[in-house]
């Protein structure tokens, strides 16, 4: 199936050694984006806006990391949300119990996530499409039930309560809302920049090749299992970072963060924004959160509204919003070329 619609997937162009300039452009774009985000609190005096952007940062990191699996490697994970939950709980627990500084807790959480992802990934990535989706889902539910049943550690279905301490580090005070906002934006921008570099690296093109034809990739000497496992672990790390932002934002962690619906939403965000462009999931995140907030405010039949919107995308547009924009831009450019 995947061979048929190669041209519809992310960057189905042969790999050309990437000029150093392209990486420099990414860095400049990231700096500009960060500057604009950092300026927002000084332009608008709205806590709701800042809250919205922080949630976008958490879910955006998560959704973009999922796209590394779904869009770039063709691994449809239905359990990616477990790493989001692991990040939130790992970070929250370390801050509550271990009395360490925030950066140390973050690094430790990433290490825990990496170990978990290596173990789970080693079991899952050798499975075929639909089984991969189910086994990742099963692991997600397993982690969710562990969180629910290990009450003495995680607080069970009540979640981690009592708040998370936020000791000042490097002159940053995360109890201050604006500083928390800027910190989240910085994590988002750095995370996106790193993922962009992974996607555009030779390794990123190896992933695209595995997605398009794994057999051929193994014929030319690529260790498919190892490449898939590597990207599975890398994606888990970024999802975990998203979970940590969420944990800081709500000052705790809830079992819903590890529930399968988070994974479902991640998949949906990717479809909404489109998996063929790097920023598609980010656009999808913003749309879904706006949609969520508006629909829950306007109607109690939130599912009905959301369901119809999904149907519109799946059966009507048949692709994500960013795919649509890219196609439209290409058509426009070709037309302009013809005329000149």
């Amino acid at each position, binding site marked *: 199936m995947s061979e048929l619609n190669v041209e519809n997937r992310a960057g189905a162009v042969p790999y050309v050694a990437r000029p150093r300039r392209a990486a420099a452009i990414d860095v400049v774009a990231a700096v500009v984006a960060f500057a604009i985000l950092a300026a927002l609190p000084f332009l608008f005096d709205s806590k709701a806006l800042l809250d919205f952007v922080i949630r976008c940062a958490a879910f955006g990191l998560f959704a973009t990391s999922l796209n590394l699996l779904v869009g770039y490697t063709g691994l449809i994970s239905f359990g990616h949300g477990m790493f989001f939950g692991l990040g939130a709980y790992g970070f929250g627990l370390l801050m509550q119990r271990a009395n360490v500084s925030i950066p140390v807790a973050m690094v430790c959480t990433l290490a825990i996530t990496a170990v978990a992802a290596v173990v789970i990934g080693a079991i899952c990535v050798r499975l075929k499409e639909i*089984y991969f989706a189910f086994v990742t889902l099963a692991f997600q539910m397993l982690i969710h039930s562990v969180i629910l049943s290990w009450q003495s550690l995680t607080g069970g279905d009540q979640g981690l309560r009592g708040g998370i301490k936020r000791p000042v580090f490097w002159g940053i005070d995360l109890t201050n809302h604006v500083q928390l906002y800027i910190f989240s934006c910085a994590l988002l921008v750095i995370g996106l920049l790193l993922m962009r570099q992974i996607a555009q690296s030779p390794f990123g093109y190896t992933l695209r090749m595995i997605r398009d034809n794994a057999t051929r990739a193994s014929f030319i000497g690529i260790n498919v299992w190892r490449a898939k496992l590597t990207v599975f672990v890398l994606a888990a790390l970024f999802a975990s970072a998203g979970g940590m932002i969420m944990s800081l934002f709500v000052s705790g962690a809830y079992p819903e963060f590890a529930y399968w619906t988070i994974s479902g939403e991640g998949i949906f965000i990717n479809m909404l924004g489109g998996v063929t462009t790097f920023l598609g999931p980010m656009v999808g995140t913003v749309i879904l959160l706006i949609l969520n907030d508006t629909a829950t405010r306007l109607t109690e039949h939130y599912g009905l509204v959301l369901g*119809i919107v999904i149907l519109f995308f799946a059966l009507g547009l048949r692709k994500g919003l960013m795919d649509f924009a890219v196609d439209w831009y290409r058509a426009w450019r070709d037309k302009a070329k013809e005329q000149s």
Partner: protein
Amino acid sequence: MDLDALIGCLGSSACVVTQTTSGLIIGMLLFLVAVGLTLIFGVLKIVNFSHGAFYMFGAYFALTGYQLTGSFVVALLFGAIGAALIGLIFERVFISRVYGRDVLMQLLVCYAFVLIFDDTVKLIWGAEFKSMGMPEAFQVPPWFIAGGVVPPFYILLISVALAVAALLGIGLARSRLGKVIRAAAHNPDMVSALGINTALIYGSVFALGCALAGLAGALAAPVRSMTPGMGFSVLIESFIVTVIGGMGSILGALIGALLIGLIRSFGSLGFPLFTDGLMYLFMVIVLVARPTGLFGKDVA
């Protein structure tokens, strides 16, 4: 963890009988849902993520049927036929558009309908918990088998599910329609070239799968409470059943469902909080040992 309770139970025949029947109930209901799922997957190559909704529809239609006529047989028919009709329309109008498309796209269309169906039920029957109550015919003292308590309704439920399993198994293997269905699962183009209407086959298999889920919902109506969204946990469990048993295998669905049912009922004694976890753990172990499930052939 409460291992003493589990060991204590295993030592008494009354407790074993009671737990086994309650495990069989869970297993049989799961089987009816899962066998529809596996049938639809085997023939249409679609993972019907909205299958739980038909279980829910079955339960609610049965409730309405029972309230209108007071007859449990009518309630069962309402549940099965209602779910089948909705399934048929759903397949013809929406699912038939995504045959052969990306798995992701198919899952998404179904996910959309999970949300839509749940809200529709909420609109029609309301969001609060409903219950149908035990039909009068079954309001009799329970039977005692080896000291264990067995309500007669449980016997009915188990026999209906077993009868369905046998009918399906024999029907698919022996009858002409069964042979056509198996041929369509194997090579739909060839079947279509032989002058058989595959759209009709697809539609009826989907409707049959939904009818079975609806029947399960209707059978569950007297013993479970109903709420919009009740299909979801059943869906996840029947996925586990089909994956353990092997996608596309009816025998696999039966064995998988019974195993999950027994794990749930005995596990709830020993690990009250981790019952769900046991199930997922079991699934992981089976899949690591046999990625295609216990009775599955290599698919996908």
